């Protein structure tokens, strides 16, 4: 069974039809990239998976989003639980103006209430180890997260997600503010993380999608034009619009 699948997913921002009959099936523990020109709906699609679009006025959603077989858009869905299960990393790293330690335990405190100090320490260590930051930061846990480099901040944001034990990690242009070396290290981290998590990344960089993902979807004007194995999409796309986009002939 697919980890996430959509059936005729439609989304409107007031009168603007942003997603049109999207049917996608995302497999567990793989990296799925969504590419397409600006405004094609790729970030909108990503944000439907944890209902982040609900925060925008005038949003309407039609169709289904099945996550582990359960419809995430039906009335009565527990959004806090959904966003714990489906975490998100944003374009600009956005640590809280708190210490490194507090950043990581913040979510767990919200979700689980009172927890012992030992357990919190364990969560911090596990989460920082997962993003390969533990050795760098284990002696600086009380320092402000805002003092970190951009790359460290982005890793910290990923660690903050991991702390609440999500299943799915959504990444919206996670490297767009990073230099090539930092980007390469985040991509390495993504490859590590896919052993335990299902990762969906929206990226403007086709090279990044080609390097890091297992599956790729190409979107245009709100439609999912083509979806398939990354190798096939970048060497032999079936759709001419996909070919035109990835070879830079588009628009």
């Amino acid at each position, binding site marked *: 069974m697919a980890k996430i699948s959509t059936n005729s997913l439609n989304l409107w921002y007031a009168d603007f039809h942003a997603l049109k009959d999207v049917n996608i099936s995302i497999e567990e523990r793989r990296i799925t990239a969504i590419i397409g020109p600006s405004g094609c709906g790729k970030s909108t699609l990503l944000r439907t998976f944890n209902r982040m679009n609900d925060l925008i006025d005038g949003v309407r959603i039609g169709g289904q989003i099945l996550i582990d077989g359960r419809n995430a858009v039906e009335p009565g869905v527990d959004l806090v639980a959904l966003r714990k299960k489906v975490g998100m990393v944003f374009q600009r790293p956005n640590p809280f103006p708190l210490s490194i330690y507090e950043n990581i335990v913040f979510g767990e405190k919200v979700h689980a209430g009172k927890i012992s100090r030992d357990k919190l320490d364990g969560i911090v260590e596990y989460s920082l180890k997962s993003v390969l930051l533990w050795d760098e930061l284990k002696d600086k846990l009380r320092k402000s997260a805002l003092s970190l480099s951009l790359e460290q901040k982005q890793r910290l944001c990923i660690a903050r997600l991991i702390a609440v034990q999500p299943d799915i990690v959504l990444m919206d242009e996670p490297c767009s503010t990073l230099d090539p070396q930092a980007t390469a290290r985040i991509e390495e981290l993504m490859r590590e993380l896919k052993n335990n998590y299902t990762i969906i990344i929206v990226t403007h960089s*086709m*090279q990044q999608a*080609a390097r890091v993902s297992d599956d790729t979807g190409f979107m245009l004007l709100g439609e999912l034009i083509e979806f398939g194995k990354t190798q096939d999409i*970048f*060497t*032999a*796309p079936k759709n001419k619009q*996909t*070919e035109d986009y*990835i*070879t*830079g*002939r*588009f*628009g």
Partner: protein
Amino acid sequence: MERHFDEALQELHKDILKIGVMTEEAIYKSIESLKNRDKAQAQAVIDNDDKIDELELLIDERCIDLIARYQPMAGDLRFITTGMKINAELERIADISVDICQRVLEIADKPLLKPLIDIPKLSGIAQNMVRDSIEAFIKKDADLARKVMLTDPEADKLRNMIVDELVELLKKDSKSAERAVALLLIARYLERICDHTTNIAEDVIYMVEAKVVKHHPESLA
């Protein structure tokens, strides 16, 4: 939208066409030199091979440069990688023409063992296959590439006939060994040229249709 990249691809296209024409000429002249026992022409083919080698290196360099700088995808990527492979096949074919000429130099001063009928026929097939495979690449014509592949068994058959005939001759008259072996080798060279053109044709089909037919002749249909 016309891309700057398209100009670079066009240049690559022209260079591959050029090495194709040079190679075709090398085979033609090598067979002419055999038919006419023309040592000067054979030597000219051998001497000209350096130019083909140089062009091969230039094309390779151009392909690597395009990959490094443009990070091509999809059809562009298939075009460049196919171009690189075809370049190597053509250079190899040109080397085989040199091999033919070397055999010509060995036997040119000796009387003809037998009238040359089947070898020119085989060389005609080889030349057509080279021409068609290059044209298939240039015109992105997968059907023509398939035609090239389907011609190969004809070349194999003809080569076998030539070999059988020469072996018979050898059995009867061992003094003709040197000339017979040279002709045997030439028949073998020509058949190898045909094999290289089928490689080109397979690459063209991959380039055009993204379909791998290499080692799967049944998928030709």
